[in-house]
């Protein structure tokens, strides 16, 4: 059992929890994730480790409620427990000092980019962060990102904060002006990562993306998470989730994300209709 010791609502439908998981914290490095199962009947869900503190043993997870499992997780409060959690999973990112990196975070993807930005910043790398959200209200981790960035830009789809439009447009402008960074790291919705990779390809700038494929075990046993990278099939839970954005077959991946769309809708509707068990009483 893994107990939730802190909980914060960051934006509508975006929540942060800190979970007591000292064993996982001890070895966690940027780019890694956990897989958890809320209860006996739950599915196994991956979430990136947004922060980990080996001293307190607290693991920070930030998630957006997009379907049944994340909504159910969002219902849990301080003191509640999660039945199973395994990690750290995935290949950690090899972070060494570079001269200059750009971190592009979209939506809830800002949370997983934070540990990487932090690691670069601490090594003395110049970090420029580009943060995009649908609206000002949906913008998360603003203060945290400011603390680990030399420069920071924002965008919202509706123009309520920062640039009006997509964050990849800001990226394009920056690269156009130059100088070019050693690396761009883009984490967010698949469409955003695909677009960011297209933009950087124009300028020949190395780009790392973190893929949120559908997973089951998260340990290389099932192949549910497979993606095509540079014409080769990779299991993203083991060899990823970070890959070279210019080599990922995004179109295939986007199609694969819809594998269980009908079932996911059914599960969500059933949950909202109360069959999942109301926790109000």
């Amino acid at each position, binding site marked *: 059992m893994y107990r939730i010791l802190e909980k914060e609502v960051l934006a509508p439908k975006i929540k942060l929890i800190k979970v007591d998981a000292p064993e996982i914290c001890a070895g966690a490095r940027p780019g890694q994730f956990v897989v958890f199962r809320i209860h006996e009947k739950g599915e196994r869900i991956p979430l990136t480790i947004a922060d980990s503190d080996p001293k307190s043993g607290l693991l920070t997870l930030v998630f957006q409620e997009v379907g049944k499992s994340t909504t159910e997780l969002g219902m849990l409060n301080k003191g509640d427990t999660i039945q199973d959690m395994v990690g750290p999973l995935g290949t950690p990112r090899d972070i060494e000092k570079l001269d200059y990196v750009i971190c592009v975070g979209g939506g809830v993807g800002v949370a997983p980019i934070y540990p990487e930005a932090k690691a670069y910043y601490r090594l003395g790398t110049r970090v420029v962060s580009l943060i995009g959200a649908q609206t000002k209200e949906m913008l998360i981790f603003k203060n945290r990102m400011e603390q680990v960035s030399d420069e920071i830009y924002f965008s919202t789809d509706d123009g309520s904060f920062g640039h009006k439009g997509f964050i990849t447009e800001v990226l394009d402008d920056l690269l156009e002006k130059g100088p070019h960074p050693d690396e761009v790291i883009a984490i967010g919705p698949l469409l955003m990562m695909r677009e960011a990779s297209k933009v950087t390809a124009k300028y020949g700038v190395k780009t790392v993306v973190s893929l949120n494929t559908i997973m089951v075990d998260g340990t290389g*046993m099932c192949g549910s998470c*497979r993606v095509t990278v540079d014409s080769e*099939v990779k299991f993203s839970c083991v060899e990823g989730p970070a890959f070279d954005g210019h080599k990922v077959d995004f179109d295939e991946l986007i199609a694969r994300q819809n594998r269980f769309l009908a079932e996911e809708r059914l599960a969500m509707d059933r949950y909202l209709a109360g069959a999942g068990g109301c926790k109000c009483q």
Partner: protein
Amino acid sequence: MSVKISKEKHEMPKQPADTRIKNFEEVALGYTPELAMAEAARCIQCPKKPCVAGCPVGIDIPEFIKLVAKGDFLGAAKKIKEKNSLPAMCGRVCPQESQCEAVCTLGKRGEPVAIGALERFCADYERIHGEPLAEMKTSDSSSGMVAVVGSGPAGLSCASELAKLGYRVVLFESLHATGGVLRYGIPEFRLPKSIVDKEVEYIKSQGVEIRLNVLVGTTVTVDELFEQGFDAVFLGTGAGLPYFLGIPGENLNGVYSANEFLTRANLMKAYLFPEYDTPIWVGKRVAVIGGGNVAMDSARTALRLGADEVTVVYRRSRTEMPARLEEIENAEEEGIKLMLLRNPVRILEDGEGWVKGMECIKMELGKPDDSGRRRPIPIPDSEFILDVDTVISAVGTNPNPLLIRTISGLALGRRGNVIADEQTGKTNIPGIFAGGDIVTGSATVIAAMGAGKLAAHGIDEYIRRKNGRGM
């Protein structure tokens, strides 16, 4: 004695095919006491006991059968347990036709004694009528501490044996449940999970501590385990990494590896979706690629999940199929079609990312290859299209590299398997032992169990020497 022995064995009662394809309950119902005694009476108690040599763990088969014939079922169960701590499972999933029953004397003139069915009966009888599990003493750590990695049959039997030898044992499992393939691979209708639970309870009652959700290699490394005071580590991590054929279209929606399909269905209980949260999707017409137990299990699971038509596509002929005979027969009874001497060449897309068919080619058998089986050769220009919307690939697995690549200097074979001594489980690194599928590649439950047990004795000897206590 001049009692005439029937040439045929007593069949185990089964659920009728048209009923069982609508449920996930066990297909074979097991002998009644009367049937078991009648079947046991067929054994002629050969003085040379050829059957015993056919059993990888050397169960005293005639002896336990004699007890069954007398109606002493608990005594028979005890006899079996002297050699095999997981009889309820082996009786169900052992490929008996190529092991103990293959060498039974009666097999020369008729059907062999149904040894597996009798073993299963005894284990089930004991589970229901035997003494409840007594909590055994928790082993103290004075003789030593051993970490067992992986809770499949290799890990379970190694842990159990070490506990009997007086060691403190911690069993680490990366999934949220124990059992390995017994839990996530082999379906409920062939091996009810309550039986796996029972065996695990037994092992816990011996004082073995089980830690789930620990991926050794990342959550904790083998070096850290030694630092924590473990004297030895047993690697029983299995061969869980599925491979694919590498044909076009394998990443389309509607294509599963058998591991994904079976894990969703078994471990995650997706057949109870939406009561359980994990989804599974199966179309109307399913092709399963492969000819082993994994292919049969996938095909039969697909049928139970509502597919109208399931076809197993296998590149050799029926005699080369590695699946257990009983399971091939069960599958055919249930209406699964075998399409032999056919091999897929690509999977076709419907234009929206989903499977719309599978192109196959006809094969013929040539000269034997290094596996001793005749090599399948494609017949030119014999391609045809199979009309399917779901494809399940059951063409084999490799050892999972996650843990073993974190152990520097560990000697590995060509296919990434761990090299370990067959008799002791010793690897090239002192204190690290291994057994089961991680060493042999995909094999059998009983072979993995046997390896786990031998390794336990290898570990015992190692720790005694290390502590200067001799043998």
